[in-house]
Every structure is written in structure tokens, then in C-alpha cells.
């Protein structure tokens, strides 16, 4: 078996790899290898001019153009606020139930997951502007979000009225908390009066971080965490819904909750 025969056998195999591989980057690299092999075939066939052009355009130029295109379109950009357990950055690594769920979605769509952490009020703006594909980080299903579509509830939670026992009056009205958890923890440590409505993940963060005693009343049971996507991204919403359903049925969601929130 001579060199040309080996190359000609390899060509369909590499072409099949490039066509069938789920990850776009590897598919593009497969195309690049295909072009290099083809250039070698041209060289063996006595056409070095064609081989040089094939290598320059097929293996180098178009591969770069594809890679740059993937960097723009081949990413699932998630705008999220930091809520430990759901989305949390620890020593440069972002983990949490929601991050792992979105990893499943990204893998099924052949995209690379990019999580951008930002203050809660900027998450919606980023998704609405198109800077991010999905909004995450303990977003509650019932809240108003014009121009956006919510995914299904992936994790049920309750809402808790949290008041500081020694600082505030028990009858003080509570308001849903929209700020950053770090600020709330800081003001709790300083002994300021607190009267907020929190979901389970945020409540856990507050009570674990701050030893102060709180007056906690379970208020509403019907709440749940859900991702948001821009209204025009119905394709993404459908894929998200299908992936969450799959994770729920396969028991993967339960494992994730046990791993990150237990």
C-alpha cells in the first residue's frame, strides 16, 4: 500500500469525522486536516501549485474564518448573578446547579458555555440587548420581564420573609430582594435592620454567611427558578425546555441538587 492509497483511504474517514462531529471546533479542525490530506494528494499527483493553494486557503484561511465565526456564534453566553449553589464563582471556576444544567444544554447544541457574572439588575438588560443568550442566577419564575420569555421552572423553591429579630419590627413589610447577596450579608453583619423576601438559595447563603439570628417565615410555596431568554429566541427556548425535561426525567437534576445544594 503506497502513500497515495493511505491518504485516499483517510480522506473519507476525516470527512466523516468533520461532518458528524457534534463540537463545531473539532469539526472545523477535521475540515482543516481534510484540506491538508487533499493538498498531499495533489502533491503526489504532480500538482504542487494546486497543493499550495489548497493548503493556504483550505487548511489555513478558511479554518481561521470558521474559528472566528465560531467564537461569535458558537458560544452560549449566559449572563448570571452570583448565587452560591446555583451559579457561583470559586477560584476562577463557575459552578452550581444552573451552570451544570446550562452545560448540558450547551453540549447538546454543540456550543461552548461562557458564563458572565454581573449584578442582578444587569442580567435582564444583557439578555434583552442580545449580549447574552440566557439569563440565570436564581431568577424567579413569576417575576415580570417584558420582551423576554421564561423557560420552565427547573427547581421549585419557596419564598421566605426574612426579618432581623432584634433589629426590626415583625410587622414590617418585606420586599423581594433584587440586589447583590454580598451587600445584604454585609448589612446583616453590621447589624442593620433587614426586611426582605428571599428564595431558598439566597436564604441559605445569608444564614450560612451570617451568624445573626433572623426571623424567617415561609410565605409562598408556588415559586420556582427559571432561566430567561430573549423573546425572539424561540429555538433556544424550545431546546432549553427539552433539555430540562430530559435532565429531570433522567434523574440528573436530582443529582445536581444533591451535589450543589445539600
Amino acid at each position, binding site marked *: 500500500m503506497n502513500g*497515495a492509497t493511505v491518504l*485516499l483511504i483517510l*480522506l*473519507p474517514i476525516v470527512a466523516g469525522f468533520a461532518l*458528524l462531529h457534534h463540537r463545531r471546533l473539532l469539526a472545523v479542525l477535521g475540515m482543516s486536516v481534510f484540506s491538508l490530506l487533499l493538498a498531499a494528494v495533489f502533491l503526489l*499527483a504532480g500538482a504542487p501549485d494546486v497543493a499550495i493553494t489548497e493548503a493556504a*486557503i483550505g487548511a*489555513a*484561511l478558511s479554518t481561521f474564518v470558521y474559528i472566528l465565526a465560531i467564537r*461569535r456564534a458558537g458560544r452560549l453566553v449566559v449572563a448570571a448573578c452570583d448565587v452560591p449553589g446555583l451559579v457561583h464563582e470559586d477560584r476562577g471556576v463557575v459552578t452550581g446547579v444552573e451552570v451544570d444544567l446550562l452545560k448540558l444544554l450547551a453540549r447538546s447544541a454543540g456550543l461552548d458555555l461562557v458564563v458572565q457574572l454581573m449584578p442582578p439588575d444587569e442580567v435582564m438588560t444583557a439578555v434583552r440587548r442580545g449580549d447574552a443568550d440566557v439569563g440565570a442566577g436564581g431568577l424567579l419564575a413569576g417575576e415580570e420581564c417584558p420582551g423576554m420569555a421564561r423557560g420552565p421552572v427547573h427547581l421549585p423553591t419557596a419564598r421566605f420573609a426574612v426579618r432581623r429579630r432584634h433589629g426590626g419590627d415583625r410587622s414590617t413589610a418585606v420586599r423581594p430582594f433584587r440586589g447583590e447577596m454580598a451587600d445584604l450579608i454585609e448589612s446583616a453583619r453590621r447589624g442593620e435592620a433587614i426586611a426582605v423576601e428571599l428564595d431558598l438559595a439566597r436564604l441559605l447563603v445569608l444564614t450560612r454567611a451570617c451568624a445573626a439570628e433572623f426571623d424567617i417565615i415561609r410565605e409562598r410555596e408556588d415559586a420556582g427558578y427559571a432561566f430567561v431568554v430573549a423573546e425572539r429566541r424561540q429555538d433556544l427556548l424550545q431546546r432549553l425546555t427539552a433539555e430540562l425535561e430530559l435532565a429531570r426525567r433522567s434523574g440528573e437534576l436530582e443529582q445536581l441538587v444533591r451535589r450543589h445544594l445539600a
Partner: protein
Amino acid sequence: MRVRHLALPTIACTLVTAFCAVVWHGFSLEGSRRVDVSPWVESAKTLGAGNVVSSIILGVRLMDTLVEVLVFAVAVLGVRYFLELPHGRARAEEIPESHLVAVSSAILLPLILVIGGYVTIYGHLSPGGGFSGGAIVATGLLLVAAGVGVERISARFRETALERAEWGTLVGLLGLLLLPIPFGRLPLTDLLPRGTPGALLSGGTVLPYNLLIGTKVVLGSWVIIHHFLRHRGEI
């Protein structure tokens, strides 16, 4: 659903396999059954260029090459026209590149430029030419654009000057093509001396044609890269 997804890759793989089978069959043919190209080689050799392919595409088949260049120019014009950003529309945000890519692109760029220049300038003596050399240089520019950001590079060039240079090379090509007419010779006729075969300054007009085509390909590719990169992928 799954079958429909697999249909296209299967067809494509079958075509590639068929292509490989045909090429393999061509390799296995006896020498006597191959096409005899010696008459073309003989006619190309009269131009004095060492690379027979360059002699053919920039000599006896020069008109084909010129039409190819025109097709490329029209493609660049199309990209420029259709990807022109409407007034007030935001440009795509720059995606920060890793330090590794930025540094390696700076190291690789001179190497790529030298190889691209060599392939273009020696296109009439060794394999290569204006098209492939221009594509190599354009790849180098693309690598740097990916490494340090397209807007930072484009800030160093003036858009109008680039546009003029691009059309200037096209006019230069046509001028070189029509230059023999004032001298009472037919268009496309070789005017420059043949030189010593194998020397850098040989092959008549093949070398200037290669240089002009290489410049045109680099400038045109840069316009395409620049317009593609500053868009969000939507027209």
C-alpha cells in the same frame, strides 16, 4: 428525525469516497494511458518561466486568469456593499483573545509574510503564484486580527487608501494587459524580455502579473476579513 440528520453527511461522505476512488484509479493507471501534456509544456516553455503552470495561467491562458481576478473583485465589492454597517448600528464587540494567541500571532506573522512573499515573487520559478501567495499573507493578517483585534489593525490603515490601492492593482493588471497595443503588438502579448530561465528576473510579464494578483488578493481578502469580523453575523 435522526435519519434526516444523517442523510446529508452520508451523501457528502459518499461523494468524497467516490472522488477518492477516481483519484486512486488515476494513480493506478499506466503511464501510457495518462493524458499527454507535453505540447502544453512546450508552448509554455517559450515564455521563459521555470514553472509551467504559471506560464500557462499567466501566458497562454491569461484571459481566464483575468476573468478570475474580476470575479474576485466583484465578490469583494459585494461584501463591501452588503455588509456596510447602517448608520448608527453598533459594531460587534471585540472578543478578548488569550495572551497565548496574541503573542504567537506576533511571532508567526513575519514568518507567514516572508513565506507569502516568497511564494508570490518566485511563483514563475517554483510552485505558487499570486493567488496562493496572497492567500498566505491574508491568513497572516487574519491571525493577527484574531490575536490583537481587527479594529486595532484597521485603525492603522485608511479605508479609502486601501480601496484605491485595491482598484489601482486591478487597473494596473488591465494596463499591463493592454500595454502592448501602443507598441503595435496584440493585447496579452508578452512585452518584457524572457531573461535567463531560472533567474529571478525571467519569464517576461509573469512576475509582474503575479505581484499584482498577489497584492489584489491580499487587499481584497483584508476587506472581506474586516467586514466579516466587525459584523455580528447578521446582514
